[in-house]
């Protein structure tokens, strides 16, 4: 680095332009306003927009989970009904064959969850940010994912697939140096 010492000296002689005097006034006013609103800021520390999750994504995910649970509950219930029907028809078959149509009608809707994937196809680091009310900076990472859920009817072999894009913003706290 010694080769550059003269050049570094010349560079340091270059003086950056001074900010306008108005800037000092503006900063002073902003700091005054900050002091006045400190107590308010404490109240608002956990405001909707300051939480480290994207609420739309969270809401969408919860809705999707609720649909899945509902679907699973219905599937299990129908499976039980189907079992009962089979048991009844087995008992009845000694005297009378069970109607074939009734069994088919229950098996048609007998989908069972067959798996799901959450494919992250893009993760963008959006750099460090200060969220209001936070003492430390956070790194903002935006994920784009494609979530896919599959169901399969083991009897008929039919399958059902639901796929939708999702976006999630994660704020990761970083420690100072």
């Amino acid at each position, binding site marked *: 680095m010694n080769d*550059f010492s003269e050049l570094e000296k010349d560079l340091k002689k270059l003086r950056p332009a001074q900010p306008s005097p108005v800037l000092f006034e503006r900063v002073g006013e*902003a700091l005054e306003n900050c002091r006045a609103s400190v107590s308010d800021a404490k109240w608002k520390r956990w405001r909707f927009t300051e939480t480290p999750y994207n609420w739309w994504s969270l809401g969408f995910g919860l809705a999707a989970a609720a649909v899945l649970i509902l679907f699973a509950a219905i599937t299990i219930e129908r499976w039980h009904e189907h079992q009962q029907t089979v048991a009844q028809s087995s008992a009845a078959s000694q005297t009378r064959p069970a109607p074939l149509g009734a069994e088919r009608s229950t098996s048609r809707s007998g989908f069972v969850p067959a798996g799901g994937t959450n494919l992250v196809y893009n993760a963008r680091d959006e750099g460090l940010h200060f969220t209001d009310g936070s003492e430390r900076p956070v790194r903002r990472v935006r994920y784009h994912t494609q979530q896919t859920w599959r169901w399969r009817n083991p009897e008929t072999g039919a399958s059902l697939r639901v796929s939708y894009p999702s976006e999630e913003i994660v704020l990761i706290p970083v420690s100072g140096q």
Partner: protein
Amino acid sequence: MEPIASHENWRNCFSEVAPGLLLFARQWVHSAADAEDIVQDAFVKFWRRNHDIDNRGLLYSAVRSLALDFIRRDARRARREATVLAETEPVVEPHFELEDDTQSALAAAVESLPRDQREVLVLKIWNDLTFSEIAGALGISQNTAASRYRYALTHLKKTFQPQ
């Protein structure tokens, strides 16, 4: 140096760091007024959070982040900046108080540096940040920061002809 955030007289602190911060902000925005807005926001946040001078890398990181947000926020402005960027490459006009032709030539040589080298140079020379602090502010490794600084000086040595 005295901890910046515990200093009662913010004016002293601000007058010390503001020229370098403005120069740094002008890496991304060409208007001096926009750069002052960004520096104001960053400094107020830094001061309000009572950060220590040891964490001043955060101040520069905040300036950079706000500048990038500023560009993203206004698409029309971003296009205009991009047009200016394309037309007047190299982009940045570090505003110096020039005293003679030698300084003008040196300032022109600095302006001709690639952006990634120039931002490291600006942080190192006119803001006195360490490579560790520069790495933190720019989100790069310390070695990368040092390399870019060395490349910048090498580039300047080739292009700068003292008058």
